[in-house]
């Protein structure tokens, strides 16, 4: 099939519609406003629901209601807006509601900047809302991967009855790349049935209840243990990652999203200087591919593991957990919308090597 040139934000919106999503609620914020803009035109054309809400809080709660009513539904925002969604995300996890949440990250904290950043890693992977809950978090590094993962995001959300987050940095939302639509579009009519949804009893069954309240401590504990068991199944089955030239490498860069591309460029620079470097890229940042990273880091050839982020160092905590002390872990990153250059990244590796 011929390649088409797509902007990241528009591609993610189109990919959602092709994944059978027929329901979008959102509130404008840079650098993701092209998503609601695209949805406002194309969702109704696909026979779906588009609604611009009064806030991100309202949007995520509309997602809650629509998901509880059985719809394949999504919302999108950027960092400050995703902060406002945390309440609803926690409630969706508690009530076991599927849905996809896109975060096109910008610099923070607070109002920060509209430029690309990765400062919401902790919020995405550790949870910014209350309670013991997890999200499946995909962190694609190019627009092809964004559209390839979108269908899977909705499928996993339905399969596990939990929200899935697409964690993009603003660079991926804003840039254009040639992509291919590899998977055939999904029809909403072909989606698996949701017998738990509140669609009206027709007085033929007992009422369905969507709820996250378990007032009795024992019942709440049982509920939490059941969720935890589900999360363990996710950890076992849904880790995704990619490696580039990591076999026999001296330097292992670990990065997700845009920094993974910078790390590839930095590895190229090192190669020219006679140093073999590879890139380990988690595609899911929760569940994090700890064992796979450990396997790469433990190779005899590896001298240093260098984490690259557009933040002051968040994923590096997971890298340390994965590497688990078998090799030194160092960090290079810029925050607030400043993007490290490949040269800076390569120099960080040289410094870690003591050269």
């Amino acid at each position: 099939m011929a390649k088409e040139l797509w902007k990241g934000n528009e591609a993610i919106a189109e990919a959602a519609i092709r994944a059978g999503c027929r329901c979008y609620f959102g509130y404008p914020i840079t650098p993701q406003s092209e998503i609601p803009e695209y949805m406002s035109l194309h969702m109704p054309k696909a026979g779906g629901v588009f609604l611009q809400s009064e806030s991100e809080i309202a949007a995520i709660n509309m997602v809650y209601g629509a998901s509880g009513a059985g719809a394949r539904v999504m919302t999108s925002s950027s960092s400050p807006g995703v902060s406002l969604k945390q309440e609803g995300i926690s409630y969706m996890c508690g009530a076991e509601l599927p849905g996809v949440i896109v975060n096109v990250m910008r610099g923070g904290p607070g109002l920060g900047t509209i430029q690309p950043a990765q400062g919401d890693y902790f919020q995405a992977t550790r949870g910014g809302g209350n309670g013991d809950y997890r999200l499946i978090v995909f962190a694609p590094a190019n627009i092809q991967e964004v559209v390839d993962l979108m269908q899977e995001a909705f499928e996993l959300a339905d399969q596990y009855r939990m929200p899935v987050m697409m964690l993009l940095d603003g660079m991926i939302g804003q840039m254009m790349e040639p992509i291919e639509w590899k998977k055939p579009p999904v029809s909403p009519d072909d989606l698996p049935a949701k017998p738990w949804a509140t669609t009206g009893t027709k007085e033929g069954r007992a009422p369905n209840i969507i709820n996250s309240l378990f007032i009795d401590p024992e019942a709440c504990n049982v509920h939490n243990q059941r969720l935890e068991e589900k999360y363990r199944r996710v950890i076992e089955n849904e880790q995704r990652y990619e490696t580039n030239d990591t076999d026999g490498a001296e330097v292992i860069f670990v990065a997700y999203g845009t920094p993974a591309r910078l790390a590839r460029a930095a590895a190229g620079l090192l190669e020219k200087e006679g140093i073999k470097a590879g890139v380990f890229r988690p595609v899911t940042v929760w569940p994090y591919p700890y064992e796979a990273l450990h396997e790469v880091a433990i190779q005899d050839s590896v001298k240093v593991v260098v984490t690259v982020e557009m933040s002051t160092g968040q994923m590096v905590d997971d890298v340390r957990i994965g590497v688990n002390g078998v090799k030194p872990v160092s960090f290079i990153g810029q925050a607030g919308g400043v993007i490290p250059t490949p040269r800076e990244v390569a120099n960080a590796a040289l410094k870690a090597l003591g050269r």
Partner: protein
Amino acid sequence: MAIVYQRSKGLTDVETHYCPGCTHGIIHRLVAETLEELDILGKTIGVAPVGCSVFAYDYFNCDMQEAAHGRAPAVATGIKRVLPDKVVFTYQGDGDLAAIGTGEITHAAMRGENITTIFVNNAIYGMTGGQMAPTTLVGQRATTAPLGREKSHAGSPIRIAELLATLDGAAYIERVTVTSPANVMRAKRAIRKAFELQLEGRGFTMIEVLSTCPTNWGLTPVKALEWLNENMIPVFPLGVYKDITKEEA
């Protein structure tokens, strides 16, 4: 022998947890009877709030969702947009709707969201133990206003029915109470009218019901009814604040 009174089919047989004399129970029954009489129990999805009526999801005999504090109108919007042919209602207290959820209720009304809201105004935060609500009367004591609400400090009560009636999207807004059999009948008619208009697709409907909280008011159930009549009604006058069927006539 003729049956003159029995549990409405709109209610499950779960025993409610409401305090003795609390009028939440009467309001539940009026909503349940309405759903039964209009024969819409099988196509109704209710949204419970956070507040004393949080367990409403166990009491109404229809599909239910439990919303975060104040967010019921957004949750109801999500449901209704996906299932436009179903009947969707929210049941919310005054802390839920008139404090933390003012954004959600206002915009649902503004959009003319075709849902029905039952707004239970008891001038206090019941569930959390009698703290001041935005509807608490000036001078009324609350656990966070131990000397009574002071206007210079906390303002005066918010009148939601009047406020939402200014919005074009609101189709029907009435304030009622349930302090006497006659008032209960009037409240029932109002609730029924709201659901009927929803069935006709007319837009946002809200019935504000002045309700008692004997426990946190520190009054007996009977005294609480009297206190409501004497003190709340002058501040929150009963009546129809918006009726698009009249405007059209």
